[in-house]
């Protein structure tokens, strides 16, 4: 049992780093994912993950496989796409889903173009799928900083974020915080994706954000516990995924995301608001 569960983390520093980095990432990204989901922006997260690619690629082109330039580049690209899509939807009749799709597709194509200008397909694989087993101190510090920012934002703006997500028109009638909170939130989505892409890659970093959130939705009807539960699911997925990758010699990023995916599917089936409970118990009901 010890060999199976603890030994890999005790014996190998790279496993400790991978675990520490991914747990830190879950702590910030999962609650952000819950709000993305509740605001019906789950696919926006996916779009943003693609949108940061050209920035990361530009950083890669100039400095090689270095975390800081790639993170800054990704952040700039993500912010540009989020801002552009947000502005188009605020200033024109086009809704945010369409403008976001337009901007991220432009961004993604640009990103692939830039990566292919230099480097091998191995490099492209690194950028797209990440290397959680090679997290260095810089990467860990970056993830830690992003997590602190995310938790700080949630602690301060919790009430506004809940109101903005639940009844935006009401918030607008009592406060001017709606728009700033929306943009700060989008900024944090981008930050968390940037934090995740060193570990999980640009394509999969959104997985750790959305899957635990989507799974937690089936277990509770309150947003606070939902966030806490999503973090717990994220933790479990990271630990399971890393162990799976260690013992079965599988790539670590996909293992983590697939572990979260397994929790999601189990939740769909067995959660109190999932398929089985809401179907099977139909024939018994209370009189009031």
């Amino acid at each position, binding site marked *: 049992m010890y060999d199976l569960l603890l030994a890999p983390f005790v014996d190998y520093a790279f496993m400790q780093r991978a675990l520490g980095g991914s747990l830190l990432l879950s702590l910030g990204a999962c609650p952000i994912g819950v709000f993305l989901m*509740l605001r019906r922006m789950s696919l926006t997260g996916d779009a943003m993950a693609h949108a940061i690619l050209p920035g990361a690629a530009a950083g890669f082109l100039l400095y090689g496989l270095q975390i800081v330039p790639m993170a800054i580049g990704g952040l700039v690209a993500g912010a540009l796409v989020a801002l552009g899509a947000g502005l188009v939807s605020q200033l024109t009749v086009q809704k945010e889903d369409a403008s976001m799709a337009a901007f991220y597709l432009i961004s993604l194509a640009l990103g692939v173009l830039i990566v292919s200008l230099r480097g091998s397909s191995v490099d492209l694989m690194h950028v797209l799928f990440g290397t959680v087993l090679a997290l260095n101190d810089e990467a860990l510090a970056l993830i830690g900083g992003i997590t602190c920012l995310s938790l700080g934002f949630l602690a301060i703006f919790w*009430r506004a974020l809940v109101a903005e997500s639940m*009844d935006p028109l009401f918030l607008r*009638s*009592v*406060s001017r915080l709606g728009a700033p909170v929306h943009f700060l939130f989008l900024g944090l989505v981008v930050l968390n994706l940037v934090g995740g892409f060193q570990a999980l890659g640009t394509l999969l970093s959104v997985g750790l954000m959305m899957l635990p959130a989507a799974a937690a939705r089936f277990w509770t009807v309150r947003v606070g516990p939902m966030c806490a539960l999503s973090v717990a699911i994220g933790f479990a997925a990271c630990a399971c995924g890393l162990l799976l990758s260690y013992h079965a010699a599988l790539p670590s990023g996909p293992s983590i995301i697939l572990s979260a995916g397994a929790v999601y599917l189990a939740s769909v089936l067995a959660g109190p608001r999932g398929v089985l409970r809401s179907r099977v118990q139909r024939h018994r009901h209370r009189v009031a």
Partner: protein
Amino acid sequence: MSEPALIFRDLTLGYGSHAAVHHLSGTVERGSLTAIVGANGSGKSTLMKGIAGVLKPMAGSVDRRAGCTVAYLPQQSELDRTFPARVVDLAAMGLWPKRGLLGRHTAADRAAVAEALTAVGLQGFAERPIDTLSGGQLQRALFARALVQDADILLLDEPFNAIDQQTTADLLALIRRWRGEGRTVLVVAHDLDLVRRHFPLTLLLARGPVAWGPTQESLSPANMRKARGFDEAWHDDAAWCEPETGHDHDHSHAPSGLQDGHRAA
């Protein structure tokens, strides 16, 4: 009762360049209860948005008495009913004007929320998720939130739509209570019998104001005919509304020339 709560000064509200509320001037007295009546598209909801401050005027202004707070219950609520929240969480949103972003919700605040839920007949519903409420129950919960807001002016946009008689009666009792407390209430309503029975004042809108005064006079047959005759459609070739000489609205004082012109339809 002679203190004004709201003053409309030549207020024009609209979308794009088309006016939906056209040159409305007048005063809403503090503590008054006014029904706003008119056909679909006559500008009732637009006026509510203008007073609530979620829509900026194209011309003119809405002046609120200093320190007056507004609670706004929109017709098309943007409330996401699938959001994971309980009835008590929804009503507690009404604490925002008092507690804002970071203020602690005290025991007294929680008691006020519980009392509001009782007042709207939702005792025992506090822990229910909002996605399990019926339409009438949700409307009661939204009234509870407005109650918690403790506002001086209440704007209720078609609160009785698709609401059963019992709930309507309860909500009307609540509106009377608000008025008794000296609050100013404006209600958009379609049911003219209900308006005649419960509302002392009526503003009859047909883009522009047709009549504004005691309900019996505003809803006279002549006024109703005038209101029915109005043309709801927007016309791209509608005349631009130009300031007339001698007319006391002066668009040249507006900070931006862009927003000055608007079509009369």
